[in-house]
């Protein structure tokens, strides 16, 4: 007989996973999104190994040069190679997107789990705080937090993560409320498993699909938020490159060097649309109502 400790956690069955993957493969838009995201992720990872100029090395003989064979995307106001800064900037942007969402999920999901599972006054307190945090517009809250924490990429990530956190509390709580009355949760409770085991082994795996979808879509929002904070001077600090801070400098040279503003914006647009397409595709693939 299988003992309780050896009882397997209830996760989506293999058949379900392959069905989702099949649906995902049929969704061209999601595949395009996945390719775009993978491309930028590979670029960001490979940045230190690529034969590109130093992104912070200035050259007084190459100030604001238009795109050419020597500098494919041109140079900036200090003669730095824009392609190189774009590739290193991808690292900052993607890192900011992923880490801030990790912070939001890491704090939001446990609170949502506890809130939905225990209910009562715990739920009331967590829900009221979440509602209050949701009433503060995302970017204003991120700006206020970044301002009080001090300008840096790390603090921008913390500010964005904390601002995005209430979405995950509310989402997880809602999912837990739907799942906690299921028979298998009742079963786990009746055989004497403790609350922690029930939450982590039986509830969490069954509420994780919408959280993954939301996380993917929130990475897109977080990338724009990081670019916005860096654009305002509250994120990545010079001379380190980030797409937002590159745009911040570029806006002062619009007439002399329009290419400085063009490339970082296109990169932000592409990576954000990539995450949005991937997120939409994941939502369709993981939605059991969709055939």
């Amino acid at each position: 007989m299988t003992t309780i400790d050896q009882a397997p956690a209830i996760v989506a069955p293999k058949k379900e996973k392959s069905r989702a993957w099949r649906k995902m493969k049929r969704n061209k838009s999601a595949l395009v999104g996945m390719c775009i995201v993978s491309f930028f992720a590979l670029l960001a990872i490979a940045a230190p190994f690529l034969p590109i100029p130093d992104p912070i090395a200035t050259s007084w003989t190459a100030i604001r040069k238009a795109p050419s064979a020597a500098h494919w995307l041109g140079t900036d106001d200090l003669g730095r190679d824009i392609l190189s800064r774009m590739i290193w900037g991808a690292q900052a942007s993607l890192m900011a997107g992923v880490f801030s969402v990790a912070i939001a999920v890491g704090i939001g999901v446990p609170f949502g789990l506890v809130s939905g599972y225990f209910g009562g006054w715990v739920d009331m307190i967590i829900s009221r705080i979440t509602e209050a945090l949701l009433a503060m517009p995302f970017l204003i809250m991120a700006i206020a937090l970044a301002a009080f924490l001090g300008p840096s990429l790390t603090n921008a990530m913390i500010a964005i993560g904390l601002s995005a956190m209430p979405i995950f509390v509310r989402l997880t709580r809602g999912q837990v409320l739907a799942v906690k009355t299921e028979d298998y949760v009742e079963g786990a409770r009746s055989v004497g498993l403790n609350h922690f085991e029930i939450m982590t082994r039986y509830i969490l795996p069954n509420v994780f699909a919408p959280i993954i979808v939301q996380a993917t879509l929130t990475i897109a929002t977080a990338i724009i938020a990081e670019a916005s904070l860096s654009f305002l001077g509250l994120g990545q600090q010079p001379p380190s490159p980030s797409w937002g801070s590159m745009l911040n400098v570029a806006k002062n040279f619009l007439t002399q060097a329009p290419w400085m503003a063009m490339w970082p914006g296109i990169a932000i647009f592409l990576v954000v649309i990539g995450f949005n397409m991937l997120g939409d595709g994941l939502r369709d693939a993981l939605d059991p109502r969709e055939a």
Partner: protein
Amino acid sequence: MPVYIGKRLLVAIPTLLIISIFVFSLQKLLPGDPILAMAGEERDPAVIEFLRDKYRLNDPVIMQYFYWLGGVLTGDFGISLRTNQPVLELIMEKLPVTIQLATMAMFFAMIIGIPIGIIAAVKKNTFVDYLANILALSGLSIPNFWLGIMLILLISVQLGWLPASGYESIFVDPVRSLQTMVMPAFVLGNALAATLMRHTRSAMVGVMSADYIRTARAKGLSPKEVILSHSFRNALLPVVTLSALLFGELLAGAVLTEQIFTIPGFGKLIVDAVFNRDYAVVQGVVLCTAVGFILMNLIADILYVILNPRLRATL
């Protein structure tokens, strides 16, 4: 209805209290002692003690919070360190500018998003629908500050059609005011147009498969009548309430747009305050935005009840 509104207002009170605690705590997050900065280089202990007493910093934190909250409730948000003006006065000065920008942005969002949403729903699963979906996805993915920069480059610098920056009050020179606001309003309304388009499409698709639409068609009504008089009227409900909610988002979105087009509004106020370490202004702006957001939520709920006869009947 008044009872319903009263109940909704009561529910908002705890939310507002939690927000006030959060905004007050922001001040406590600050590194360093503000009194030492105020005391100047000499840092005379008597002056430091006097300032601590004056600002009640010797009292327990909870008492400090209540003093601060009492001030806020009577309209005293503190004094701006930079301009020496009361924070509330500054906010009231800048708010009309942002409200004009947000209203124009909402106008753009509605005239772009709603018709495209209707067309996409009517032409569901056709090339037009896919194109509308790509447009919406692009609208959601373009950073609005970049779109602003590109429009300045194209429309102001290259074509010279509209001014790149500046602001004129609509009551002083309406034409100039509209000229300066058209581009920023379009930039701000762009992402909202995408959101409205998606919601209009989804609401219309839901309504168009309803039985009463089939009946309307069977009665021999023209497609135009079916779409506009029957489908759209019913699909409008979630769209209107969403618009009220998005209006709150516009206040936040205005931060970057105002920065790019140098519009002296609410958004620029917070950014300038952040860089001048004018924390009383930052706190005031965050608090006012949150109150505005809750107010718009309330209006959205009330609109929902007014527009939905079934809900109205239950009140």
